[in-house]
């Protein structure tokens, strides 16, 4: 478990590697939940990195919820939806988020669409 403590120190690339170590440890300890959660975090980190490079979205280090919010604020709806599907976010939470984000931006047209 100490492996994941180490992860807080490092930035960017090192982080993914450290997380991989954590995954291995969790696997050994048969902690299914933590294994999966850690894998998801890695997935998220890679996704953020990709988007940061493509669009300069500045997502690095945000949690999933904040990432989706940031994406919606930037008008990147497709990417947000992708996250929502990939990470099996409960509908309720996502719609709430979307509603709020759109309302804040006064993006009534997009709001109208659903």
């Amino acid at each position, binding site marked *: *478990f100490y492996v*994941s*403590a180490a992860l*807080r120190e490092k930035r960017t690339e090192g982080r993914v590697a450290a997380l991989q170590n954590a995954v291995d440890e969790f696997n050994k300890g048969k902690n299914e*939940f*933590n294994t999966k*959660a*850690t894998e*998801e*975090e890695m997935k*998220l980190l890679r996704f953020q990195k990709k988007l940061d490079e493509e669009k300069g979205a500045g997502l690095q280090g*945000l*949690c*999933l*919820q*904040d990432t989706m919010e940031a994406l919606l604020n930037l008008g990147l709806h497709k990417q947000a939806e992708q996250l929502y599907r990939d*990470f099996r*976010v*409960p509908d*309720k*939470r996502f719609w*709430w*988020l979307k509603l709020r984000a759109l309302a804040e931006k006064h993006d009534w047209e997009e709001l109208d669409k659903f």
Partner: protein
Amino acid sequence: MAAHLSYGRVNLNILREAARKELREFLDKCAGSKAIVWDEYLTGPFGLIAQYSLLKEHEVEKMFTLKRGRLPSADVKNIIFFVRPRIELMEIIADNIFNEDKLHSPRDFHILFVPRRSMLCEQRLKELGVLGSFINIDEYILDLIPYDGDLLSMEYESAFRECYLENDQTSLYHTAKGLMTLQALYGSIPQIYGKGECARNVANMMLRMKREFAGSQNQILPVFDTLLLLDRNVDLLTPLATQLTYEGLIDEVYGINNGYVKLPPEKFSQKKQGEASKDLPTEHKKLQLNSAEELYAEIRDKNFNAVGSALSKKAKIISAAFEERHNAKTVGEIKQFVSQLPHMQAARISLANHTSIAELIKDITTSEAFFDKLTVEQEFMTGVDTDKLNMYIEDRIAQKDPLIKILRLMCMQSVCNNGLKQKVLDFYKREILQTYGYEHILTLNNLEKAGLLKPQTSSRNNYPTIRKTLKLWLEDANEQNPNDISYVYSGYAPLSIRLTQVLTRPGWRSIEEVLKMLPGPHFEERQQLPAGLHKKRQQGENRTTLVFFLGGVTHRRRSQQRVVKSRVELNASERTAVYTLKILLSTGTRMGRGQTLR
């Protein structure tokens, strides 16, 4: 000055005096003018023992807080460091001293470790090459601090974390030591009861220490009849629930620290502008709360719903008293009236303060969010749908409410259900990680380790049985005129209080079954008293019980405050409960909060 300490059933001033005497002796050891460098954490507890004036009498001229770099310049002969025995702090001290030496002023350095010196720290100082700079290295044993007329505290923040998460028993040792000191002053306590792993440990340590002192018998007539040691993890539910007494709510909303509360100034300053002429104190931001204040002593333990009426009643009494001046005819009568004036003024100020506080709190308690949360809590406590996914928690996560609130509710559900179903638990955990960030995986892990959050292992849920046997829930709690302790949480009677009550009458043997369901062993020990010290007890006389919570009474908001508290209280009948509760409440918050730390 410390009048409130002697009001209680047991005169705690003795303890305070003993502590002050020791401090004075140490200060006198360092001759000449001195400056104290404080470990910031210690200033609060010390404030309860000695005010600045006492220090001044002993030539303390300056006070600083401990931080890196150079010490602020001061024209004094001695520099005294008051610190906890922590390695990190040693490094700061060494840093201070190095920087100092360059400044060519010959000064004497002293260190006072609170509550105990540690070899490890001295070793560290040696490694850093500064151990030789100290003239005096001493310890100041400060274990149990008299907090209020009927409350002692160790002011030991991290006890819960250390005991249940890190398996560190240092705090237990301090506890046992502290209780021995207490017995030296107030006489041996003939009966010791306890429940829980840590309680067992403390009792063992105490008995061992007693054996070490074998030859010297304590000749003081015992003040306490019974000591009850309770592990915090026997009753995890109580601290998770929102406190509903006046004091409890102040703590929930603003946090009470070392007996002081900090309040937003706006509300108070407005008041003063309106009331132009009166000589009110200028700054009201920080307010001391203890039973020395008549009005506060009266309302602190009332359910918040009853505070309003109590305040208005008081207001009428005070204005009636002021009206009396018109009736005063003779010089004698006027004189008497004038002599009462300061007292009445004080009463009026305190009334104004508490009315403002009550208003502030009322804004919160009447809000919809507060009510919703309370409803959910009460559902859990009565055992409604505790095994299902809770909609409210789910919604709150979606709205990204403060994490601590979510965790508290989750833990509560877990405790009431004797663990959550794996599926439910995983869902919550996933939601939290996704919403609040992956790093909280450590938080959750800690909560699980401490037993606040756990997957259901057996299909049997003990909580309903415990609830029924100990009558933890009363449907019609009377908030205005309480006849049972359950009024404090508007229905829920804290488990630990019930244990205390049952112990008094009819005794724990009657609830053997339930005790077995709670974690940890329960035990009973007797300490032999020297002949002739047995109190002859008249029928109906109240017995005094000291209740000690290991791992903290529900407490304050700041992360991880886990103060070990003890409570002196009346035995016998319902009053017991009311009294004990005070701590539970004064201490009312955050169990989960602590665990948020990674």
